């Protein structure tokens, strides 16, 4: 099994996942959208960089939980098919061509 979210990953990426998880709070989302540097002040420069670029694959490889990444995606208006396409290393359009009902999203 690859890409298992286990205790090692969870431990390594706890700070990053906590930041992502906190986006369930409206005030944290507002702060992140209006003043991202302040909202990300507890993150390392590597973590900030991945979040700023919305580099889904890099965030995942670093140890971000998919379910915490979903909170960032919702805050930035990114859909799950867009994230899945990024993990596969293809465009959304290319990914949707592999789906049975591309409109169901």
């Amino acid at each position, binding site marked *: *099994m*690859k*890409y*298992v*979210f*286990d*205790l090692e990953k*969870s431990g390594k990426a*706890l700070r990053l*996942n*906590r930041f992502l*998880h906190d*986006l*369930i*709070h*409206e005030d944290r*989302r507002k702060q992140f959208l209006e003043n991202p540097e302040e909202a990300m002040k507890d993150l390392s420069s590597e973590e900030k960089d991945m979040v700023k670029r919305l580099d889904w694959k890099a965030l*995942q490889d670093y140890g971000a*939980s*998919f*379910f*915490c990444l*979903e*909170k*960032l*995606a*919702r*805050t930035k208006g990114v859909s*799950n*098919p867009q*994230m*899945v396409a990024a*993990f*596969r*290393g293809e465009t959304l359009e290319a*990914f949707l061509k*592999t*789906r*049975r*009902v*591309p*409109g*169901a*999203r």
Partner: protein
Amino acid sequence: MARIIGGIGTSHVPTIGMAFDKAKHEDPDWKPLFKGYEPVAKWLAEKKPDVLFFCFNDHATTFFFDHYPTFALGVSAEYRIADEGVGSRKIPNLQGHAGLSRHIAGSLVDDEFDLAIFQDLPLDHGLHSPLTLMWPSKPDWPGRVVPLVVNVLQHPLPKPKRCFALGKAIRKAIESYPEDLKVAMVGTGGLSHQMIGERAGFNNEKWDLEFLDLIDRDPERLAAMTIQDFAERGGNEGAEVIMWLIMRGALAPTARKVHQNYYLPMTTAMAVALFE
């Protein structure tokens, strides 16, 4: 005495709830999904269970990895709808059955299932995305819920065999509650999907249909499988179908599947099945 009148297995994909909230019932892309839930909604409307016992997982919404329980039982009289990043869904708060929950907690611990207990926490789409297709939310829910939250996110996950055994212990717990209540079990999750890695977008319809057959005919065989077996066949995230085993374990040995629907439009195979 309380009794279990049947069970439901269902996907809990967030887009199911989104399609409902956007009233896409007649949209050709979504109609096959909505149609598949109609017999389940009809069964619930006719049988009128007082309580739905929900086996589901939180999606790092209410529970975070600073303290992530393997099994956590809700014991509140009411549960708010969680904000998962875009504000809460506009559906009524869920009514809990605190008395039944407390009784189940005691009975399970007595049976050596030492679960975590939570109260006054909001619940995410793992419970209410399928619920809205089965139970009317207006003007208010027709009954109460008892939520059991299962860790299917952070490995090590509970063994499938343990989930099945937990279901049996839940049956014993519910059937020893003195009040006359009709309870329906709901097991959520799956079917095949993988959201991460280069295998993201993976599905396995052949396995999904085999799972839907075995959960009816031979759940013991599913319970004997490992988490890795489930992940290889149904994708990393698809291993969450172990929560169906809790539901199945709580049903009478004579229970049989009377309806199923399978729809695979995008990244997750969406299934619903009814047992009585």
